[in-house]
């Protein structure tokens, strides 16, 4: 199958040069839970050349309300391997490398050094901080998070924007089950994927801004955030 055929509708929008540009890019996706599944799927459908996906989770029944790459038949299996299989089969144009690792416990610095950017789709602050610590100075990281039908996202660019560790100082792992539904997941995941593309093109919209999304009230607001 020819790349030009698979991505004919993309090329109609942004041209062959842009499609070739994306085919040369390599991205790291931390976490293939709810947001990670959406971000990864969109980037594959956009034609990014290589995705490294990292997660050490197993697919459980409570994941099925929002984690779009998984089905009933995947229960009990490791997320990264199922996600990699599905992502590879979407277009056949993206190299997908699964890493069954826990960010914060396993060393990922070497892998990140070969990437153009990072999507932080993790589900707790300590892991997000660990990923930020490992972020190379010449890359961007798009970070998104959810609570109920509320979400927020931003771009973290070393030396230019506020760090997650400043913005979320003192916050730890939630002690209770956090409510999340599929509508906000798809919306924020889609916005994150767009911001990854914006960063790849050198035009981030959320460097120094936090985008707040309230799903049921159709609320969107960009808030300026400066380093302390």
């Amino acid at each position, binding site marked *: 199958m020819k790349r030009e055929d698979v991505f004919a509708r993309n090329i109609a929008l942004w041209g062959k040069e842009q499609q070739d540009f994306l085919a040369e890019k390599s991205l790291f996706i931390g976490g293939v839970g709810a947001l990670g599944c959406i971000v990864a799927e969109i980037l594959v459908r956009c034609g990014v050349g290589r995705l490294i996906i990292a997660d050490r989770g197993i697919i459980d029944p409570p994941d099925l309300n929002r984690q779009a790459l998984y089905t009933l038949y995947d229960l009990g299996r490791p997320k990264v391997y199922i996600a990699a299989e599905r992502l590879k089969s979407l277009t056949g144009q993206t190299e997908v490398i699964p890493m069954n690792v826990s960010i914060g416990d396993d060393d990922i610095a070497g892998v990140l050094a070969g990437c153009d950017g990072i999507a932080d789709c993790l*589900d707790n602050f300590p892991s997000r901080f660990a990923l930020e610590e490992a972020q190379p100075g010449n890359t961007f990281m798009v970070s998104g998070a*959810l609570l109920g039908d509320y979400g927020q996202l931003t771009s973290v660019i070393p030396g230019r924007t506020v760090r997650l560790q400043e913005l979320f100082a*003192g*916050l730890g792992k939630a002690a209770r089950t*956090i409510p999340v539904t599929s509508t906000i997941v798809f919306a924020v995941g889609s916005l994150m994927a767009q911001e990854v593309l914006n960063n790849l093109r050198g035009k981030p919209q959320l460097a120094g801004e936090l985008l*707040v999304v309230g799903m049921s009230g159709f609320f969107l607001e960009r808030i300026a*955030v400066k380093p302390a």
Partner: protein
Amino acid sequence: MKIQAKSFFTVLSGGRPTIKTLDLPEGTTAEDIMNEMNIDFSDGVIVLINGRPSNEKTVLVEGDDFAVMPPVSAA
């Protein structure tokens, strides 16, 4: 002193942010404002003063722009 205060906690329940102009005594902290706005920050909170990350103990001054958001970490 006059402080412009904005809470995004009301967005959690499908609403718009709550915006208030508060007239407060000198020495007022971020925690005092959150109590004034009836915000439950027992699970943590994100505080921005003039767009800069701050914390509950930060003392505000005349004209400060105060924003408070829920701690959001799930995916």
